[in-house]
């Protein structure tokens, strides 16, 4: 109880060493979603009981019209988004307070000792610093918008309270992840968000495929979690602690580029690969689209999947000490970015396109943190949260509309397939506009948010290649080229998606199209807010080289490298390590040219790609799914089938393990081991049977055996 009180009041000993930052109920930020979860969870169970009775009776629970719904169905509308809004406001207060303070050291607020064995101690403590504050802002901010959106999107769903319970629980774990003061606590959030992801992907669990997708996400994530665990063990073995502050304090005792730090960082990165859906563990994320669309926006675009990036940024000093690991991080990132982008080219499911786009963009973030530009990675994380959440929610609005159209006409077509859409801009203008903004942002068109963040990452990849003592300059040059290529692909597939969805002729069907409509205000308002952020969100971190140039409108855009400065206390140590060992970043890209020039080239190229693809895709004739008879051939087929990676994994990993499991059970366990055990029994029984043959019950036999015995005794005494 004492700890609970401390939690609400802001903790006992806030180590406010640098600056005058007074935390404002930070524990409440975490606690509120938890309380929301408990309240909604209770309502959900009550609600589920009522509907269970209906199901037992052979029907579905009648939700009635919007006005007469039971309280279990209406209360979550207020509780779910409500706790989020309050949490966001508290975060905002903390953020403004931190803005005013010059915080050099993180503020760690202890609540209680979580685990203490005598040699290992980890506290239940929250860490407030610039990085966690940015993450909290994104999580609670975007999270609140998505909760609000969900009210509209999910209101007809029978599991409505359960949905909000899961969503609140997710936010709770996500906040634990970013606010935890130690890797162990981060791991709690890490696995907790995985659990919520599992629950939300499998939210419509009656559908076997969706339940399978959730299971797949959880298991694949756990593969990464093993890496995280091992990395923690290594940290503990070498530092005797897994708390951030002592670990980073002692981090520079590790040998630069040594095996140990490389191992630690690589294992952490394995965790990041799992959580952030990088190659080769990205396969769960496209399947995760089985969940409700706002879930995809919140978990599988804006927050959870970026946890890996957060992890690398948080451990920046460790990664800076391990150039090999950094190269691997960037390499995996750029490969994933390109790979996923190519798959996205041929997908017809609107959410699948966005899913692969997310994988691809996460790859960018890893390129950023892999080339030592930790702030750039976090920057892209943030802008991506805006425009990708917007894209997902926009697609959600589209799907919502499509679904209602098909539902009203009792049509069983797929409401997510873009081949059934087309020309939706006439029906949903707000969605159309906002999604175009997001598309331009993700394509990297100036002055949208994505331009600044993506450009910065690409730029640093090139600049790293030219650094004084760059460890693998050739490799980074390749990364840079691939990253540029992927940016062009991004522009293409996103435009393709927009054109197929909103432009051209409508393919939904004549009767159906009468039911298409714009999303209600509760859904489009969050879209609009995110659209604004997608436009201006990038301006907080305009690169210095661009700020006075064309891109900064000659210095009009105000906040030159604000995020860099803001995160400086976090990344300073890493940058110090980099400077000592690598020297400065180059001021030129590999083939010459400064940042401004390449930024211009990339944005112009992206704009050209967008324009071209509008023409190309707009010129194609797309037919609705039911009329579509085209057989894909060649590389297009491979892309459509996602390079057959799922099939490959199934063939070389899943099936062998299942077969091995059966083998272990049937052959080793039941056969050999239990066989041996039973064999002991059989041998005993057999021996008994053999011996019992002597017990004929006839006197002669006994007499004979007795005689033989006498014979032996006599013989023994004789000799």
């Amino acid at each position, binding site marked *: 109880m004492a700890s609970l009180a401390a939690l609400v009041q802001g903790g006992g000993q806030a180590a406010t060493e640098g600056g005058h930052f007074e935390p404002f109920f930070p524990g409440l930020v975490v606690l509120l979603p938890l309380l929301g979860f408990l309240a909604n969870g209770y309502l959900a169970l009550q609600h589920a009981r009522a509907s269970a009775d209906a199901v037992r009776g052979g029907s579905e629970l009648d939700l009635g019209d919007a006005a007469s719904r039971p309280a279990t169905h209406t209360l979550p509308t207020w509780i779910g988004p409500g706790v989020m809004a309050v949490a966001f406001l508290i975060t905002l207060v903390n953020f403004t307070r931190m803005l005013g303070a010059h915080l050099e050291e993180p503020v760690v607020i202890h609540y209680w000792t979580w685990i203490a064995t005598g040699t290992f101690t980890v506290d239940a403590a929250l860490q407030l610093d610039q990085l966690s504050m940015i993450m909290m802002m994104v999580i609670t901010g975007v999270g609140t918008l998505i909760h609000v959106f969900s009210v509209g999107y999910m209101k007809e769903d029978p599991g409505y309270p359960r949905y909000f319970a899961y969503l609140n629980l997710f936010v709770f774990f996500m906040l634990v992840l970013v606010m935890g003061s130690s890797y162990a606590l981060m791991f709690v959030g890490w696995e907790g968000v995985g659990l919520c992801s599992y629950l939300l992907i499998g939210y419509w669990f009656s559908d076997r495929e969706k339940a399978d997708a959730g299971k797949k996400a959880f298991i694949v994530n756990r593969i990464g979690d093993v890496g995280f665990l091992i990395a923690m063990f290594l940290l503990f073995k070498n530092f005797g602690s897994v708390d951030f502050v002592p670990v980073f304090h002692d981090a520079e005792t590790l040998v630069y580029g040594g095996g140990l730090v490389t191992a630690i960082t690589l294992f952490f990165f394995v965790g990041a690969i799992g959580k952030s859906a990088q190659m080769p563990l990205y396969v769960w994320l496209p399947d995760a689209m089985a969940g409700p669309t706002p879930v995809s926006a919140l978990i599988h675009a804006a927050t959870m999947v970026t946890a890996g990036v957060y992890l690398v940024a948080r451990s920046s000093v460790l990664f800076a000490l391990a150039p090999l690991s950094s190269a691997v991080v960037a390499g995996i990132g750029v490969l994933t970015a390109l790979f996923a982008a190519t798959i996205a080219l041929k997908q017809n499911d609107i959410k699948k396109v966005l899913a692969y786009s997310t994988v691809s963009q996460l790859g960018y973030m890893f390129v950023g943190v892999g080339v030592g530009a930790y702030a750039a990675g976090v920057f892209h994380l943030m802008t991506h949260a805006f425009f990708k959440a917007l894209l997902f929610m926009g697609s959600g609005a589209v799907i919502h509309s499509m679904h209602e159209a098909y539902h009203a006409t009792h049509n069983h077509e797929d409401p997510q397939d873009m081949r059934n859409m087309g020309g939706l801009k006439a029906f949903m203008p707000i969605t159309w506009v906002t999604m175009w903004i997001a598309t331009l942002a993700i394509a990297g068109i100036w002055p949208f948010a994505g331009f600044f963040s993506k450009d910065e990452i690409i730029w640093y990849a090139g600049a790293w290649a030219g650094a004084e003592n760059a460890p693998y300059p050739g490799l980074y040059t390749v990364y840079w080229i691939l990253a540029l290529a992927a940016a062009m692909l991004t522009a293409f597939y996103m435009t393709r998606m927009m054109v197929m969805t909103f432009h051209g002729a409508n393919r939904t069907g004549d009767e159906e199209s009468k039911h298409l409509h714009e999303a209600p205000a509760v859904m489009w308002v969050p879209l609009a807010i995110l659209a604004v952020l997608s436009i201006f969100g990038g301006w907080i971190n305009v690169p210095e080289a661009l700020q006075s140039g064309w891109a900064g409108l000659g210095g009009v855009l105000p906040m030159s490298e604000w995020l860099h400065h803001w995160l400086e206390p976090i990344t300073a140590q890493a940058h110090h390590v980099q400077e000592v060992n690598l020297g400065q970043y180059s001021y030129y890209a590999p083939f010459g040219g400064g940042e401004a020039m390449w930024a211009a080239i990339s944005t112009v190229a992206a704009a050209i790609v967008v324009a071209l693809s509008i023409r190309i895709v707009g010129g194609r004739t797309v037919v609705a799914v039911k009329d579509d008879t085209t057989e894909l051939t060649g590389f297009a087929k491979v892309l459509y089938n996602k390079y057959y990676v799922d099939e490959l994994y199934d063939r070389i990993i899943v099936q062998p393990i299942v077969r091995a499991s059966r083998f272990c059970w049937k052959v080793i366990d039941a056969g050999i081991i239990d066989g041996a055990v039973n064999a002991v029994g059989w041998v005993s029984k057999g021996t008994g049977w053999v011996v019992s043959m002597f017990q004929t019950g006839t006197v*002669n036999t006994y007499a*004979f055996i007795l*005689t*033989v015995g*006498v*014979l032996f005794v*006599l*013989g023994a*005494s*004789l000799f």
Partner: protein
Amino acid sequence: MLSATFLFYLFAGLAIGGAIGVVMAKSPVGSLLFMVTALAAMAGTFVLLEAHFLAAIQIIVYAGAIMVLFLFVIMLLNLGHDYEKDLKGGAFAVVSFGVIGGIAGLRAQQLGATGMQDGPGGAAIDALIAEHGAVGAIATELYTTYVVPFEITGILLLVAIVGALVLAKREV
């Protein structure tokens, strides 16, 4: 006068022959008669070994009473008509018989060879017989030193009679 040695071998031959007859005779009655022969021959050896009383008992109790009892039973049960299955052949039994016989004989030979020609016991018994007579020699011991076991054998016989009655009775 027939020498004692000759008589011994005569009795021994008769005893062995009788014994083999017991085993080999087809009819139970034949076996029984061979048995009587063997018992009588052994009584003769008893005499040669100066155990006159025992020789008498052997004839009276064994060859007389017990064998008659056997005969009664055989007659009573009307046995002796199914002897074709009676004798178990089996090389194994014969071989084991040979081995046992060999070892037993060797053992006996060994015991006898270790200076057991005629120990001090012989002289003592002779003295006792001289003093008390053949019956008296054994009776003195039996009614003094071994009186308790002697009485117990009496009880044993009683129990055996009762037991035999109970067992042989048709209805309890």
